């Protein structure tokens, strides 16, 4: 135990050496990464701001709902009571009982019920009511509907709000709505990740275009279904790369085929050869000057595709030619 390394509390000569060497090390993250990060950060703030505006509108609507909800009920009840007072004496007068019998509740209520009692618990019916006490609150109900459509966010989580909003009372709606921004934020984050060249997502099995393409593609040595018919020299060239047809590749190269021509989804011959694990074709293409960083329409580079497809020889070859 006498050889226990010294404590870190001792003078930090190793740390100093490390820092000196680090200061001399010119390696640093690429400018593209810096730009992407800062742009993404600004974009997220903008999205949050938009979302917050939506939340504020919802809060306002919630307040509107509360202001509308209680008077509407009270107004409806008052209207029902008033109507009952007006109609009941007429009903009693029509029956004109000879005896001075007290009108029974059983007698009046069944007649009044269809017109007066039924609207009371259903506040939506109140919106269509025409009685004076209910008009005031109703006037706020119509803007509510228009506000809802005006600030309707374009998010997949929105239906979650609509369902309780139309079926349940307002306070429940407000609680549900308060959950939505988080869901939408997650969705936005996911979108940003997908759009922002997140490498692990690209490499994760089943998640990305590169991986999908690779998993969908047969391994080298197996039958390869051409992705497009060789209708022109460029397509024939790409197909030769995909199939690992070295003689065809070289022949087409000597005929000055565009080495970096792309198919419908932006894949170059190098990318197609990489996806198929055609190491020799990749080597030929690189030797003839193919762009090792030519990404496809999804932004997947040959290097990422090679990594995702577990083609270490192609990874090494690409890196030798400056692939990033």
């Amino acid at each position: 135990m006498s050889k226990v390394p010294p404590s870190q509390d001792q003078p930090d000569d190793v740390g100093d050496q490390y820092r000196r060497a680090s200061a001399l090390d010119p390696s640093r993250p690429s400018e593209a990464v810096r730009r992407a990060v800062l742009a993404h950060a600004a974009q997220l703030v903008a999205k949050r701001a938009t979302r917050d505006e939506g939340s504020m509108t919802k809060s306002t609507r919630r307040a509107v709902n509360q202001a509308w909800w209680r008077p509407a009920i009270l107004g409806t009840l008052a209207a029902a009571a008033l109507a009952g007072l007006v109609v009941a004496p007429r009903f009693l007068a029509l029956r004109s009982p000879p005896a001075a019998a007290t009108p029974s509740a059983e007698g009046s209520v069944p007649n009044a019920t269809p017109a007066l009692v039924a609207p009371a618990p259903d506040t939506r019916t109140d919106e269509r009511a025409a009685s004076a006490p209910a008009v005031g609150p109703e006037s706020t109900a119509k803007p509510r509907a228009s506000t809802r459509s005006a600030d309707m966010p374009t998010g997949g989580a929105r239906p979650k709000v609509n369902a309780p909003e139309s079926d349940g009372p307002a306070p429940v709606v407000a609680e549900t709505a308060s959950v939505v921004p988080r869901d939408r934020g997650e969705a936005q984050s996911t979108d940003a990740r997908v759009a922002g060249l997140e490498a692990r997502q690209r490499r994760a099995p089943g998640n990305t275009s590169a991986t999908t393409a690779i998993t969908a593609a047969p391994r080298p040595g197996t039958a390869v279904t051409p992705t497009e018919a060789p209708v022109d020299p460029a397509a024939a060239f790409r197909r030769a790369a995909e199939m690992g047809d070295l003689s065809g590749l070289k022949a087409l190269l000597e005929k000055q085929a565009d080495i970096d021509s792309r198919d419908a989804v932006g894949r170059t011959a190098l990318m197609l050869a990489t996806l198929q694990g055609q190491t020799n074709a990749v080597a030929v293409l690189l030797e003839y000057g193919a762009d090792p960083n030519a990404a496809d329409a999804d932004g997947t580079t040959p290097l990422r595709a090679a990594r995702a497809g577990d083609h270490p020889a192609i990874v090494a070859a690409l890196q030798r030619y400056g692939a990033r």
Partner: protein
Amino acid sequence: MTDAGESDEALIGRYARGDAAAFVPLYRRHEMRVWRYLERNVGNRATADELMQEVWFAVARDAVRYEPTSRFTTWLFTIARNRMIDSIRTSRQQVSLETLGYEAELVVQQLTTAPNAGPLAAVVVRDQAAALAQALGQLPREQRDAFLLQIEGDLSVEEIAAITQSSFETTKSRLRYARAKLRELLSEYA
């Protein structure tokens, strides 16, 4: 408002409240530290670039959830480490620094072609850079990780132990052995 003297926690708080400008100084302040931590752990610049982007995307996304109960750097390097480990698990092809012939060669080329590097300086720099890369590469992964967390993240032993989910004593031992090994390997360049 300038960022001079403003704490990381204040900056991330401002950003979470919608001040996009606060993110820029925060990123610049920690850019190289996170980069070196990633690059020297994974030993590959392309992968480090990808991880770098993922880490900072996560920081931006989760800023609203950051609670200043711990230092920002602890949170930042926790994210960085988790992303790195995920990446390693996903790719299953962690490249050790010793095998980075191409990368090391590139570093040496860049160092020796620096405009202000004279012949002697170039040799010294080349040797130091190569020695550092080799020395770090010879450390066991846990020791290298702990050392880089400490020196790049400026994290305490307790914080490193928490991040790596190791005991305090284990972490302390890793740091000691890492430093001892590096001291030995770098002794001729001291």
